[in-house]
């Protein structure tokens, strides 16, 4: 989608809302989807569309765990660190994943593919440990299983780019 098309989509969302501001999170999420993260320019764009000041958008953006105000990799890997996953070896799982990817939490792999972030309970507690990539929840993870999923994500991206 070009930026113009995106602007039209967002304007539609905003006019369908009860007040423009109601659409703020939706607008931030769409812009983030487009740019990869909520860049300073995207934040100003959101403010302009919503009739808010950039600061008003910033105070929203920084409130949410899944709005990224810093550059992230192609895919953000959110690993649950809450109690049910913890009880099923979540801490071990996360540190193994750090070792396999060669990064610490909060960092991005050198190829720009993955950013690793711990996150709040993903509501997949019966399938602990668990992670969220994009819109997809994965459960009953071991580090081997998680790496296979990540390898697949990388291959999918390479395939998309080859097309």
């Amino acid at each position: 989608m070009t930026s113009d098309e995106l602007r039209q989509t967002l304007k539609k969302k905003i006019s369908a809302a009860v007040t423009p501001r109601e659409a703020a999170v939706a607008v931030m999420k769409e812009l983030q989807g487009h740019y990869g993260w909520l860049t300073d320019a995207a934040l100003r764009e959101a403010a302009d569309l919503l009739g808010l000041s950039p600061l008003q958008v910033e105070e929203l953006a920084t409130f949410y765990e899944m709005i990224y105000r810093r550059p992230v990799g192609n895919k953000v890997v959110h690993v649950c660190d809450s109690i049910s996953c913890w009880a099923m070896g979540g801490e071990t799982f996360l540190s193994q994943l750090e070792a396999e990817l060669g990064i610490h939490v909060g960092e991005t792999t050198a190829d720009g593919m993955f950013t690793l972030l711990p996150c709040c309970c993903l509501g997949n507690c019966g399938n602990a440990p668990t992670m969220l990539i994009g819109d997809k929840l994965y459960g009953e993870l071991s580090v081997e299983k998680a790496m296979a999923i990540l390898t697949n994500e990388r291959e999918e991206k390479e395939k998309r780019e080859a097309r």
Partner: protein
Amino acid sequence: MEQPLFQHNKPGRCVTFAEYREEGGFGALKKGLQEMSPGEVQQAVQDSGLRGRGGAGFPTGKKWSFVPQDLPGPRWVICNCDEMEPGTYKDRVLLEANPYSLLEGMVLAAYAIGARQAFIFIRRGYETAAANLQRGIDECLAAGLLGENILGSDFSCDINMHSSAGRYICGEETALMNALEGKRANPRAKPPFPAVKGLWGGPTVVNNVESLANVPGIVAKGPEWFKGLAKTPEGAGTKLFCLSGHVVTPSCFELPLGMPLAEIIDGPAGGMRPGSRFKACLPGGASTPFFSAGQLPVPMDFDAVAKAGSRLGTGGIVVFDQDTCMVAATLNLIRFYARESCGWCTPCREGLPYVRYMLEQIEAGEGSREYISILQDHVQLLDYSFCALAPGAMGPVQGLLSHFMDELEEHIDTERCPFTAGKNGGAYTPPGV
């Protein structure tokens, strides 16, 4: 055993709109709109004894009755699907299997309080549930079950989805309303209560997914039927219990309210994993005081669990075995709450990191006996916070102090954690390895 919430579930997939209708779905909506007044729908829910399934357990019908009928301007129904309480995943399981009971219940709720528009506030990560709901909304609109003049009646109602971006506090109903309005999701002062002054200043009812999904059954079959579903005389309805931790089958089950904890663990949950013995559990999500083995016979109903010193909460039962360090488990929970504090009020913003520090020191073998009384003081002190987040956070600390004092003292006196497994969150190999 009747399972009104799971009765339409199909193995491995979501029920279709056609199947739901063929199986009697939307019959309650028809009955409600054509044979009952809004007041009668409200009375039925009140008489049923349905208590909120989101954590607080406030009677749903009573909440509706607080909406003043004489105030001008729009009023609103909000479904709280911001299910972020650690250990809780019942709303996701319900909506991935069937979005229609919720939609039907929401239209009935809107009818009962006279709302023209309703919202579903859904958390990030529940994209399958959100897609099911959006599809369901479109199907209902096309079939005249939603929108203008529903089923040929004078009543009109729309349901809109609002997708969030991940923040625990949004599940607190006043914070949720700020979030929905596009403001930073700090909680609001109560009173005025949302029923009087809520979303955009209008009367608002905020109900949990499971609460609303129970409404069609109550309207169709009556309050007495609903009361009869529970195992305890004072209870009403079934409950979605979602199990996690060291049990054989950590799944979500629809069971009669009041089923004893031991029966849930040994029955549907398949008992403890091989080699595991029950040590403790969070009976109703992350903000409820621990139960230890002494509470295994407690009937899992609101009053009985409260009498036993905890809360039924969301019904998210997190089970821990003998190798779990309860100090480390509490530390994990407090880290969560300290991070999720919205920062609005001082007791929560400053108190939780302090409690976290105390527990970190104790777990690292660097605590002192004095820390125990500091923790005890903080259970009281954090009650001064603005909303229920910090008191909820202190629930597990309270449970630690009342059931596992010996473990706390051992950490302090021996200057180390006695559990090798506990330090690393359990020495468990995840299934499938």
